[in-house]
């Protein structure tokens, strides 16, 4: 197996969000690549898709989904999969990713990335479905470790074990979200470094960085602020293990202007410098932002209409 399943290291990217459309089209900022939320574009016949086409002509694009529901026990949505495939072809997307999670059963979509119990039954179930999805998409799927707030009594393996087995058996790629590792490690009291050591780094195609909220008793993956020092530390570790993979900053709530978001991901360059002078450290947040217990985990990104 080649590193990253043959997928390229695209450099430092930014999540494409509607509020930044005009800025990007006007200024064409020097971003290495963009990641889109697939569901915001697969059905679009309006400005979002029109803008995406223009961006895809200039920048590499990656599709990141939130509704594949690969772990759900309800049947896969093949119409949705074919729409993903069509959009990927239109935009020459480099890869398609989603999450190791389920979003609903019995016809309902909760639009949450719900965690799975980690055991043999769920592992086999997800492996089987990943193989089907890869057959339809005709490319290796890339799956992200979720952030989670519950663990199941019926789990018989750790998340790192589950994801490692899944990637090997289904022959898929991994999107390592180091913020999710940090959030889940805090919430479930496991060692994030041990987690990083456990997963097959050659299958890591991409990494995510994001901010989160500290609710005192637990962390919530809100994507609404800068990346904190401990997450940068995990990122540095993971980056060295992988010898470098495409890295993207997610910022989905309280979204600042584009240069602020872009500058946040560019801090990764400084973080990665071995001869890093402590006095020159970027102004990253030292502590997690205090937040209330009603913080809502991502995803909650949607496109809204504009009328004259």
């Amino acid at each position, binding site marked *: 197996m080649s590193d990253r399943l043959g997928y390229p290291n695209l450099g430092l990217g930014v999540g494409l969000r509607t509020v930044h459309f005009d800025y990007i089209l006007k200024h064409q900022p020097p971003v290495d690549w963009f990641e889109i939320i697939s569901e915001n574009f697969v059905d679009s016949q309006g400005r979002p898709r029109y803008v995406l086409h223009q961006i895809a002509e200039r920048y590499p694009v990656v599709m990141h989904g939130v*509704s594949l529901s690969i772990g759900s026990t309800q049947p896969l949505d093949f119409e949705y999969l074919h729409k993903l495939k069509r959009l990927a072809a239109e935009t020459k997307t480099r890869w398609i990713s989603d999450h190791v999670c389920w979003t609903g059963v019995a016809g309902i979509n909760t639009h949450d990335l719900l965690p799975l119990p980690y055991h043999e039954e769920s592992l086999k179930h997800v492996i089987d479905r990943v193989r089907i999805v890869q057959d339809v998409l005709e490319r290796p799927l890339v799956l992200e470790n979720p952030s989670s707030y519950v663990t199941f*009594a019926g789990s018989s393996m750790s998340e790192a074990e589950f994801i490692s087995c899944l990637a090997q058996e289904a022959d898929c790629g991994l999107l390592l979200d180091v913020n999710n590792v940090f959030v889940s490690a805090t919430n479930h009291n496991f060692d994030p470094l041990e987690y990083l050591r456990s997963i097959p780094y050659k299958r890591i195609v991409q990494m995510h960085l994001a901010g989160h909220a500290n609710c005192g008793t637990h962390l919530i993956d809100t994507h609404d602020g800068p990346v904190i020092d401990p997450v940068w530390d995990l990122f540095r570790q993971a980056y060295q293990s992988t010898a470098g993979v495409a890295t993207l900053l997610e910022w989905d709530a309280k979204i600042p202007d584009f240069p602020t978001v872009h500058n946040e991901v560019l801090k990764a360059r400084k973080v990665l410098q071995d001869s890093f002078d402590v006095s020159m450290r970027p102004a990253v947040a030292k502590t997690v932002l205090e937040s209330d217990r009603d913080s809502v985990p991502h995803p909650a990104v949607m496109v809204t209409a504009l009328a004259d």
Partner: protein
Amino acid sequence: MPPQDPSLNQIQRWVQAVITNPDGVEQGIDSATATSTIDVTTETVDSVILPSNQLSSIERLQIYGRAYFGRLIECLRAQFPAACYAVGEHAFDGLAFGYLIQHPSTSYTLGKLGEAFDQYLAATRPPRDTDMSDDLPDFADFLVDLTRLERTYSEVFDGPGPEQDRSIHPDDFVGLKPEQFADCRLLLHPCVRLLELRFPVHEYATSIRQGTEPDEPIARQVHLVVTRRDYVVRRFEVTAKQFRLLHALQTTAMVGDAIGQLLQEQSIDRGRLADDLKTWFRQWSAAPLFGELKRSAAE
């Protein structure tokens, strides 16, 4: 007691029943939907969901329970900003909460989340004030119309538009004899929506979008055309006669039949109609409302 090893499907049905229960996670655990899947109580829920060092099993589930409604209500606020302003955030959240209970999302996209919101508000509106003898539209009608408009904006914004297709230009009518025109069908672009409204809710919505204080809504009959040009949603008012003509054209009547329906109306000034029609079709073509001029097969 829970089964020894609940299946993945049982776990997922149980979790979903618990975290989407509108009365909260504890009521969700005790609900018939949940207990028929995994029979645990709030006292024995640890046998399914483990507590953490800091949180009980129920508190951990409550993170998902709060997020379920919180996230979707936030999306509805974004999709209906003017309606949210009109009733206030607290009242809007209550309406959205009731809506989500009756209309949980069944789609992979949040874009469809609010597609039945105006219908829900119409079906659950408070009774009309029986003391009002003139049966004037009330605030509930205003809210229904406003949400209908905002939903229409969303659909037109991201639905099929005229940008990549040919549109009928005013020049396309040049040289067309009246009898030839009468035998044509003018097909409206699929993005064109014709709305009959009881309030000028489009003006209200525009004020909200522009960040200005909207005028107090005063009922008046509005005939509104919503369309799209250059990927931006456009809207303009038309008269009742123009509206009926456009509606007839949209329901695939021949141009002559559509005009004929108009001529049956008592209030039509027949002397002016020919000039009016020229002006109207020129304006509507420039909008552009028409995608195709289909001439009769006989030609």
